[in-house]
Each structure stands twice: as structure tokens, then as C-alpha cells.
């Protein structure tokens, strides 16, 4: 096994463990700590895939902004932030549905070549030319969507609404 394959295996196992732990621990604050580790791990996977710009974006947007937003959500909706959730058991039906979906996807990707393939790396300059050239309209659309989201969020949480 090459060094990259070992790194990928470690990152994949950490991603799975942190994702499951985030959903299963009882304290919401601990959930957010786990999810922060998950986001950093996904960012490391982007670096492994030769996409450093995406890795930095993931660190800034997810590990930074989204984590803090979720922490604010926890702080604003409970009196004592370390209070525990009521235990929710692992229901059989959603678990079975999730497992069936997983098995279906894994068996359908099994026909792809199993061997390692080389990963293309690109200069970030090329990415920015692509992003602001061919895919420019999508960025504009993203900006419009964010403006709409700001207006909608302010409307939802405004004062004097019963």
C-alpha cells in the first residue's frame, strides 16, 4: 500500500467515526465538537485529492462558520448548554433503510475498476478562471441565493411576530 492509500484509509475511518459519534452522543455541545473534527477531516480529504482551494474553503466555511452558527443555535435555544438530550433509541426501520441504501450503492459501484488511478492536480489559477469564466453564472446565482437567504432569515426571526 502506498502512503496516500494509508492516509486515505485513516481519514475515511476518522470521518465515519466522527459522523456516527456526532449523531449518537447525548450532549449537543459534544455533537458540535465531533462535527468540527468531521469537517476538518473532510478538508484533509480535499487536500489528498489535490484540491487545496476546496480544502481551505471547507476549513473556513464549514469548520469555521457553520460550526459557530450551530453553536449559536445551541446557545440560544436552551437554558443550560450542557444539558443532556433525552435518549433516542436506534429505531430498526430507519437503520434497515439506511443499510439497504448503502448495500445498493456499494454493489452498484462494484463494477468500477478497483485499482488505484492517478489524480489530476490543477493550478488554482486555472480553477479561478473556470469559476469566474464558464461557471460565472452559477456564482452570481449563489450570491442571489445568499441575499434571499439573508432576507428570509431576518423575516423568520424578526421581533413582534406571534
Amino acid at each position, binding site marked *: 500500500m*502506498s502512503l*496516500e*492509500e494509508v492516509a*486515505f484509509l485513516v481519514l475515511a475511518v476518522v470521518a*465515519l467515526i466522527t*459522523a456516527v459519534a*456526532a*449523531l449518537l452522543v447525548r450532549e*449537543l455541545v459534544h*455533537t458540535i465538537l465531533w*462535527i468540527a473534527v468531521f469537517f476538518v477531516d473532510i478538508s484533509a480529504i480535499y487536500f489528498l*485529492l489535490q*484540491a487545496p482551494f*476546496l480544502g481551505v474553503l471547507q476549513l473556513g*466555511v*464549514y469548520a469555521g*462558520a457553520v460550526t459557530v452558527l*450551530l453553536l449559536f*443555535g445551541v446557545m*440560544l*435555544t436552551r437554558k443550560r448548554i450542557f444539558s443532556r*438530550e*433525552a435518549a*433516542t433509541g*436506534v*429505531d430498526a426501520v430507519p437503520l434497515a*433503510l*439506511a443499510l439497504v*441504501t*448503502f448495500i445498493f450503492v*456499494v454493489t452498484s*459501484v*462494484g463494477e*468500477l*475498476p*478497483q485499482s488505484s*488511478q*492517478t*489524480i*489530476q*492536480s*490543477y493550478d488554482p489559477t*486555472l*480553477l479561478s478562471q*473556470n*469559476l469566474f469564466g*464558464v461557471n460565472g453564472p*452559477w*456564482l452570481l446565482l*449563489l450570491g442571489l*441565493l445568499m441575499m434571499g*437567504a*439573508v432576507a*428570509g*432569515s*431576518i423575516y*423568520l*426571526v424578526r421581533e413582534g*411576530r*406571534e
Partner: protein
Amino acid sequence: MTALPLVGFLALSSALFVVGLFGILTRRNFILVLIAIEIAMNAAILNFVYFGAFSSGTGGLTGQAVAVVLIGFAATEVAVGLAIVLALNRLKGTINVAQATDLKL
């Protein structure tokens, strides 16, 4: 040159998506449901980057550009989701999704 198996990446992202799906279906706290949606969304965004990275030509650039836009979409979605959480908390005093039944007939 980095060489990695595509199948391993696909297995990882499908496993992460399934974890997110399970969380969406079973968790009762609205914030936990949002976190589960984020896990599933991250798994989906990873797919674009893999298929781009393993394709020839400029496919990788398109994959990364789509991923950039999708990361922005996901962050926007969290912001609106948390606004809904706060509105629900003010209206009901709880953020249990089982009690958010105002739109039921």
C-alpha cells in the same frame, strides 16, 4: 503523482450519506437533524470532487467549481435552518421536530 482507488472514495461517501440519512430519520432535535443534513451534503459534495479528480481533461476543474458553489449552498441552508430553529423555539418553546406539527391537516 498521487494514485488512489476511486471505489474506496465512493464507498466512503455512500457510507457518510447513509449515516446522514439515518440521522435525519431518527433524531428528534432540530439542530441534530440539521447536522445530519450537513453530513449527507458533505458526502454529496465529495462525489463531485472525486469524479472530477479521476477524470481526464478539465473535468476536475468543473468538479471543483461545482463543489465551491455547493459549499456556498450548504452554508446558506444552515443559516436559514437555524433561523427556522430560532423561530420554532420562540413559538413553541422547544426545538423537538416531533412537536412542529402546525402544518399538519
